[in-house]
């Protein structure tokens, strides 16, 4: 426990607005020396804003920081780094064509015009052995796996000698094994007396690693608690303001006939390299197949191939036995495949258009929305009203412009569009990415309802919690190849994690 140590950082009454949106309202918190402090909250609760103000990215409208006993007023990230605060962003700020050591020293050598890479290398090598990191310093960063790129980010901060390191959703794109390693690093930092602020919305991480938790909800502070004094349930309650069930209620269903069969698919990436290789998978009626994998292992190419926007080099896609390989996207839609794209804002929605027009995109050439040569806006408006009500979209009306909606509500608009027309098959890619717990629960419930009604679903997701929560079978994709398929009952997180990292023979 950390009661004895002095607070290294004190935030008092921070308020920050963006336009009319209140991002932080009167938030106060303390971080002690040598503690791992989680900042927990749903998306849009204000966690990142709080951290980015502290790191000097934004300036708070009001509030006061005291860092290491002195008042601290960062005007830029430079100020924060000089004072001893480092930050690892969700999207790394590394230069992929440069080596590890070059990435670490860039911007730190202040005297003279010559880079003293040799002594820098010695210093970094010492850090690596301290933290038990097995890293070649002359490797090109772009060739490292994501987990190791994150090490480089952390080393950058350690190299300049920070006292407090902020990590923003650091586990989002890591395998379970990489997460474990990251947590070891953080524990070592703690024993060396460094402090860590870990921003997350994943409860099991909070329970596993943190000493204390500060919970934010809707821009306000809910409170700070000692982790050992609370349970997951208490934290959810603090975070969401109500109780949430994690386990989706699922009826036992025997899978029916195969509805979608992927046979030996070969699909290229945009750069001409292999995206998906010899990939075979079949999904039955009444079944959700979860496809786990670390981001960038061919999931997006597979999604594109199924919905018809990416050409197959080889292989076949069968829908109820009918060959739909290389059908155009509009044909695929007509034949009853609904799709929830991984990137809803660029692939799924017209952000500058009203909700009602987003709801008919893709069905704008069929009755009842089209009659003769005209779009029937009265029908469209009625449909929008029903969809908003049925899918609980928080919006004033179908006229509201999409970009004014929150992420969860945008996803509901896509769900309403895709699921309202009796699909035969649904391919959903990261359907809950960036959603808060409440919206996530809702999406999972809808998917399970559809599965219960007889539809086959392919759920492509990087979130293992999600895959384990709703799937009947779990497949794993690594480097574009199918690594195996397991029944939910026989799958373990560790086994799936090994498959995600490319080790065959993992699994059960």
């Amino acid at each position, binding site marked *: 426990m950390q009661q004895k140590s002095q607070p290294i950082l004190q935030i008092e009454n921070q308020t920050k*607005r963006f336009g009319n949106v209140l991002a932080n309202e009167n938030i106060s918190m303390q971080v002690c020396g040598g503690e791992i402090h989680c900042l927990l909250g749903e998306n849009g609760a204000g966690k990142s804003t709080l951290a980015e103000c502290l790191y000097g990215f934004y300036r708070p409208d009001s509030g006061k920081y005291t860092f290491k006993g002195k008042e601290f007023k960062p005007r830029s990230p430079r100020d924060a780094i000089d004072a001893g605060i480092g930050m690892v962003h969700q999207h790394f700020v590394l230069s992929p064509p440069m080596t590890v050591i070059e990435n670490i020293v860039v911007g730190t050598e202040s005297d003279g015009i010559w880079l003293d890479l040799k002594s820098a290398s010695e210093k970094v090598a010492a850090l690596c052995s301290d933290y038990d990191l097995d890293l070649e310093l002359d490797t090109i960063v772009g060739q490292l796996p994501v987990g190791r790129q994150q090490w480089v980010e952390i080393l950058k901060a350690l190299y300049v000698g920070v006292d407090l390191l902020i990590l923003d959703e650091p586990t989002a794109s890591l395998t379970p094994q990489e997460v474990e390693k990251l947590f070891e690093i953080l524990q070592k930092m703690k024993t060396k007396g460094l402090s860590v602020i870990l921003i997350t919305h994943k409860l099991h991480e909070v329970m596993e690693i943190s000493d204390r938790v500060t919970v934010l909800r809707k821009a306000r502070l809910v409170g700070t608690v000692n982790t050992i004094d609370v349970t997951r349930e208490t934290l959810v309650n603090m975070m969401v303001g109500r109780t949430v069930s994690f386990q989706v209620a699922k009826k036992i269903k025997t899978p029916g006939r195969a509805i979608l069969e992927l046979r030996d698919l070969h699909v290229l990436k945009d750069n001409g390299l292999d995206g998906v290789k010899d990939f075979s998978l079949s999904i039955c009626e009444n079944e959700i197949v979860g496809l786990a994998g670390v981001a960038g292992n061919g999931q997006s190419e597979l999604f594109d191939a199924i919905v018809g926007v990416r050409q197959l080099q080889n292989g076949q896609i069968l829908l109820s036995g009918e060959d739909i390989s290389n059908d155009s996207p*509009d044909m695929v*839609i007509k034949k009853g495949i609904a*799709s929830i794209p991984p990137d809803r804002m*660029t*692939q799924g929605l017209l952000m500058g258009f009203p909700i009602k027009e987003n709801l008919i995109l893709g069905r704008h050439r069929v009755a009842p929305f089209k009659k003769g040569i*005209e779009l029937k806006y009265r029908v469209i408006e009625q449909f929008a009203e029903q969809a908003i009500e049925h899918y609980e979209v928080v919006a004033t009306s179908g006229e509201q412009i999409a970009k004014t909606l929150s992420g969860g509500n945008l996803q509901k608009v896509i769900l309403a569009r895709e699921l309202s027309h009796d699909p035969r098959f649904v391919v959903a890619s990261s359907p809950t990415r960036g959603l808060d717990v409440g919206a996530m629960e809702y999406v999972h419930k809808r998917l399970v309802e559809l599965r219960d009604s007889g539809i086959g679903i392919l759920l492509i997701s990087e979130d293992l919690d999600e895959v384990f929560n709703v799937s009947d079978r779990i497949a794993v994709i690594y480097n574009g190849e199918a690594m195996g398929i397991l029944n939910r009952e026989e799958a373990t997180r560790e086994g799936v994690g090994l498959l995600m990292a490319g080790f065959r023979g993992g699994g059960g």
Partner: protein
Amino acid sequence: MKYQFVVERRQQVSLWLNLLAVAAALIVGLLISAVLIRGAGANVLESYKALLEGAFGSKEAILESLVQATPLIFTGLAMVVAFRSKVINLGVEGQFLMGTMAAAWISMNFSYLPNLVLIPLLALGGMIAGAALGFIPAILKARLEVNEVISTVLLNYVVLYFLSYLLSGPWKPPYEWLMQTIRFEESTYWPNFFESRLHLGFFIGLVAAGFLLYLLQRTPFGFELRSVGENPVAARYKGIKIERIIILALLLSAALAGLGGVGEVSGLHHRLITGISKGYGWTGILIALLGQLNPIGVVLAAIFFGGLINGSVAMKIHTGVPIAVVESIQGILMFVLLSAQTMVHFKLRRIEDAE
């Protein structure tokens, strides 16, 4: 306590705020212009009075302003199609000239046909000629991803010099001193109205605006066109054939420009002259933006600008303000109006400084 200001984007802009911005912009523009007019040694109030009366002060003035507005309605609508689909057609000038050439060619070769046949034939010919020029960048973009900004701009010069060639030789009568064709037969004239220079082109422009509004807002094609302009990736995922929309949007834009060219030949000049387009294709960009990419807005913006052109002539004649100053005033007014339209989307907010 110290205060500082931050600039923020407005979520929504009300109609009143828009009108207020237009009014404020006009006042600012007229104040800046006043300095120029004083500098030229003329009386400011008298000059503005002449400008206003010359533009909209009498029936004749209004009708002549509408004549000036007519080509701008077409080029403005052509740019609306382009902006809405994000197919940036900067070849409106050349497509407009194609329309004038088609009208001239038909007028010279088919003048024996009755007027009632020639009126629609000229319109059709102009649209086809404009669209034919638009087809080249369209197919290049859709098939080979050639940037349409470059291809459309360059084709303008091809057309411009081809027109110069025609007017300096093949289409110029030997006795003619100016670079222009003969005066066409009356059978090829589009009708005039109200005993003025106002011709059928203006009314076709109004119909075209109505048609375009309906097309964009009420038909699946218009929806697809707007969708591609808003987000081509999402459009493609949801089954819209992007290449087809790009080609059709450019053809439509170019056809509207060509139709505008016909009006100037068959409705106004009744011959093809050098400089028949006073940069209408380029002004169309401003008209489309000033009209907020809305067909009805384009009609209003074109009439405003037509009035400005027409009133400027009166101002020059009555007060002796030199032409350079008159044209600067046109530029200043467009500049402040377009700036106001952008600025109205932002606001200043006072925040308490942390110090």
